[in-house]
């Protein structure tokens, strides 16, 4: 059959692509969805751990896009959409090439930037969201810190969230 040839996957990110021009900001389309590493970590229940941040707080990008932006694996990028902005790790997608598209596995990080619009069909739009990606020095937050920073449910002083101590990787509650 004559379908689109299965592409070979490059193993390294090339920074010296002749056609790539370094830029600060990239307009891309965001897709979210399940991924086996995110699924395994979430279902085991290890959502507070650094492991979950590594598998769900990550934007899988095309190596060409990474070269244009000047980021390498595990550099931090800020993803900004109409609904919010979140800092995630950048990583080389194993499904590349898909220039102009990034993939963030479903989870608290992706939720910040996806659209809650259901168009009266009950289902929010988790795929095909237009957003921009830029390089940043900010840290990727752990799950508990992210929930606190974004939704501020039990925070009294909203301005001072940045100075609060991290909630850590273990459950925090008062024992009897």
């Amino acid at each position: 059959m004559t379908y689109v040839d299965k592409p070979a996957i490059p193993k390294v990110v090339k920074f010296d692509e002749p056609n790539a021009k370094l830029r600060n900001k990239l307009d891309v389309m965001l897709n979210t969805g399940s991924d086996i590493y995110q699924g395994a970590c979430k279902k085991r229940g290890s959502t507070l751990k650094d492991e979950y941040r590594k598998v769900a707080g990550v934007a899988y990008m095309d190596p060409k896009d990474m070269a244009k932006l000047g980021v390498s694996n595990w550099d931090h990028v800020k993803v900004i959409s109409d609904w919010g902005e979140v800092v995630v790790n950048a990583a080389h997608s194993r499904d590349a090439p898909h220039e102009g598209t990034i993939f963030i596995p479903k989870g608290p990080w992706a939720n910040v930037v996806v659209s809650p619009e259901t168009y009266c069909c009950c289902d929010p739009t988790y795929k095909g969201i237009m957003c921009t990606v830029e390089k940043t020095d900010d840290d990727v937050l752990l799950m508990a810190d992210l929930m606190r920073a974004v939704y501020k449910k039990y925070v009294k002083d909203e301005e001072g969230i940045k100075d609060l101590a991290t909630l850590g990787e273990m459950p925090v509650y008062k024992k009897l």
Partner: protein
Amino acid sequence: MANYEPPVTDYDSIVENCTCAFCGCNCDDLDYLIKDGHVVGVRHACRLGASKIMEDMDQRLMVPMIRGEDGELAETDWDTALDKAAELIAGAIRPIFYGWSETSIETMHHGLELGELVGAVLDNQATICHGPSLQAVQNAGYPISTLGEVKNRADMCLYTGSNAMNSHPRHMARYSTFPRGYFRPRGRFDRTVVTLDPKYSDTAKMSDIWVGFEQNGDYEFYNAIRAVLKGKKLQKEFISGIPKEDVEELAEAMKNVQFGALFFGLGLTHTLSKQRNIDIAIQMVADLNSYTKWILMPMRGHFNVNGFNIFMAFETGFPYGVDFARGYQRYMNGETNTIDLLTRKECDVFMVIAADPGAHYPGGAIKHLAEIPVIQVDIHWGPSTEIADVVLPGSFVGVEVGGTSYRMDGVPIWMKKAIDKPESCRDDEWIIKELLERVKKIKAEQGALASK
């Protein structure tokens, strides 16, 4: 290469033929290796199933908790926690009971009674995953078969908008592609696997044919196949980025199989055309049935997400998003669904049972959860616990407690108990029943006061 872990040999006993409590495949051939009352190894399961069953005990919810004035969760006893939850539910004007997909049908039974009593909206994870599929099924029909039929007969398996290798890892191995069936004695060699997905996913990598049409191109692509099946000539050179000759070739190949199975996932329901994508896929399957046998099946995510839909459709007539606010059941898409109720800020008490809205809802919906009391019944400390006010630790259906679940093709399966639950936890069924009793008591007191 990765370092492979040696097989687990240090265990006390084996419990055979357990049912996996992860995805809609409900693999019922798992063996658990038990040591000191914990599962230390799982045979036959996929990476996802094994990791869920060998859970992370660090984050297991062990004790009931209530959020204090200072915003910190504090351990409490069962009576106090249940009373607090019952008080919230009984005093609510527009409560939502969301979740149910990772618990048993028996639990849902009590949940439905509670929902009817207080006029709640009962909804499950279908509302954020396969809801549009259920709408499409109501629009256009449900040409389904069991997975056993697929295993024994299918010579073409078509995955569309679904990455089975990542979200249902044993689906291909156990039901569709690799197993040897009665009429497919050579297994994989007797079948053609096609993946339609804009992404070159792990499933696409192992398919015979990958059609990488463009994003949001599903509707146009299926329509083109329908046109070709009806003998029309395609007017455009490219359909969703795919040359028209290739579309014709694929349509011809789909026509010339003996038994085809189309599996679709969230790639169809989460893109812009939502339920219309699935409408057209169902109609395509109907058209293909003029030539040969084709079936279609949604790739359901949780092990009992289909169970809730079947249970609710049987009990109330509607599959999900059932609203009892008027005392009788109503169902209206875009009105009685959790995400819409939350973005419109209608809900005033939210109870989540065996689900994780904190991890899977869009931020716009979680923002309202941050403004209202949230009751959580779950087994693990997750993103939802960070926004929960009352936490009730449940038990693990399929490992620590038995229960009925429905596979993605609608086959009911009994999930047996293998180990004992932690002493301080309770069965989901007991928790919901206890809440029901307590809410009934509060309502009776209110009724007695009103009649005076």
